């Protein structure tokens, strides 16, 4: 095993001089950014999902648009804001829906109940898995993890009524006197 500290102060000084001679002040990307670059360049999204980066140099902040091509939310266009912290992937990305929508697992502020965004997040998961998870919420809204209690109750008790509510909310209408954003593509 090498003797790590050789106690050769002369060599130490030589090394310092070398470093000074190069004289390049390198500002490095953080480990979180490096990991996000990997995640982002490996995204392989179906045609129903698109990302948009307002600043191409800032990979930590972007939006995801989901346009489900089947299920009850077909025809809608849903926007999510992603905020990734310097603790990524130790911490999950922060994700919020930027529209007011009628969905059992998304509240009126845009908070999303998706297990891998909170209690089941692990550093081995990547952005792709989060995006696929979000899309899944539109294909299979789930009444057992309610964030919007009314919507969850509607889904549980009256599936057809729930579908009608989804359609009218997506068109910008009101459900039980609560108005929603218009999210239809056309």
């Amino acid at each position, binding site marked *: 095993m090498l003797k790590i500290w050789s106690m050769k102060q002369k060599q130490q000084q030589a090394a310092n001089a070398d470093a000074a001679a190069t004289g390049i002040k390198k500002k490095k990307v953080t*480990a979180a950014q490096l990991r996000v670059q990997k995640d982002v360049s490996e995204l392989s999204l179906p045609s129903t999902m698109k990302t948009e980066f307002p600043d191409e140099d800032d990979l930590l902040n972007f939006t995801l648009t989901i346009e489900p091509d089947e299920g009850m939310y077909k025809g809608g266009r849903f926007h999510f804001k992603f905020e990734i912290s310097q603790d990524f992937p130790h911490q999950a990305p922060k994700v919020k829906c930027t529209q007011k929508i009628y969905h059992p697992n998304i509240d009126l502020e845009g*908070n999303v109940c998706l297990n891998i965004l909170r209690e089941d997040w692990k550093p081995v998961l990547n952005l792709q898995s989060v995006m696929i998870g979000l899309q899944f919420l539109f294909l299979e809204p789930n009444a057992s*993890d309610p964030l919007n209690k009314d919507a969850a109750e509607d889904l549980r008790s009256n599936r057809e009524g729930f579908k009608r509510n989804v359609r009218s909310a997506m068109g910008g209408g009101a459900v039980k006197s609560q108005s929603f954003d218009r999210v239809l593509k056309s």
Partner: protein
Amino acid sequence: MSPSAVVPGELGSGAAPSRWSFRDKILLSTGPFTHEMFEPSEEAVAALGEMQILVIGAGGLGCEILKNLALSGFKKIHVIDMDTIDVSNLNRQFLFRHSDVGKSKAEVAAKFVEKRVKGVSITPHNCRIQDKDEDFYLQFNSIICGLDSIEARRWINATLVNMVDEEQLQEGISDSLKPLIDGGTEGFKGQSRVILPTMTSCIECQLDMHAPRAAVPLCTLATIPRQPEHCIEWAHIIAWDQEKPFPDVDNKLDNDDPEHITWLYQKALARAQEFNISGVTYSMTQGVVKNIIPAIASTNAIIAASCCNEAFKLATTSNPSLGDGENNYMMYSGNEGIYTYTFKHEQKEDCPVCGQKAKDLTVDPEWTLQEFIESLAGRADAQLKKPSVRTAEGKSLYMQSPESLELKTRPNLEKKLRDLVENGHELAVTDPAFATVSFRFAIHYR
């Protein structure tokens, strides 16, 4: 309260040689566990005093570490911490007194230990670790971290890995290699580990050792809270955004603003009453919102002691240290009795920090980015067919995907390399064909 009045028999170096007699037994003679390369001598004692060591963090762990280093015979110590002393620190950060509240932790800690242990010099740096450059870190023989932030750990880790001069190392000169000793505690649990940057598993390789904070499903908070903490989290995550109680500050929550915490506390209390839950208090609210993990003085003492023993062994080679052979990670759990486990955490080949050293690449500055990218495909050691390229400073030069980034970065393909990258700077390259690896290239112009 005067510190020097407390301990009987003030032990200056000259006044009482007995302070060092037990340590000197280790350095002036051999024993059954002595490292094979160690030669006991007065020089070993003197060398210890010449070691430059940096302590990052002057909090619960940092106070212990500074005290231990000084009492082990390290004489050239630096300490860096940007924080000021809060009254809540005083129960365990024993270098601070009530009259120090509001002052720099690094400065007060340095002064205290210098005063108590004669002959030791402690240089305080009252700033963020990110404010210092490589030249600063190069002056030390080793670095000890006593931090509670993962972000700061990852930063210093990546910095030290980048500093390693591979060529020198191969010639047997290890001066650019700065062993990193990292201590951490959470309540009754803790760990200490030694990292030889690029040679052994690094903080980034070990990221999965930090369990993410246990979280309760959002829908539980929203619908069926069971514990007082659930009510506080509900107020914090959901009610705050819903009710936007402080429009004057853009509804940005300030963890240190008593008005904000009071608002959350009252919301949480009302919700707890609604669900028949008891136990919500103001200080619990503060703790949940700030994610305060209870710090236990004795856990800090145990982990700091382990870190300083490793520093001592590394500095003197008197005994094998963590990281020196098989093992590099010691975990300690005092939750139920005492349990420690020491093991080898393997370096990860695909670690984004230490897995790939930057390769030197000599290129023509007149090349376009397009030509450069095509040249990467032909390289035998990389064969990157669809590389995405960003500078080490975080500028996206070309991203193959997603579509929106490809469109935005496509105009760069026509540009000359010399207009995009400075000579000597690094590029980070990822390619979907190498799902787990990113490549780094240091660009040198012909």
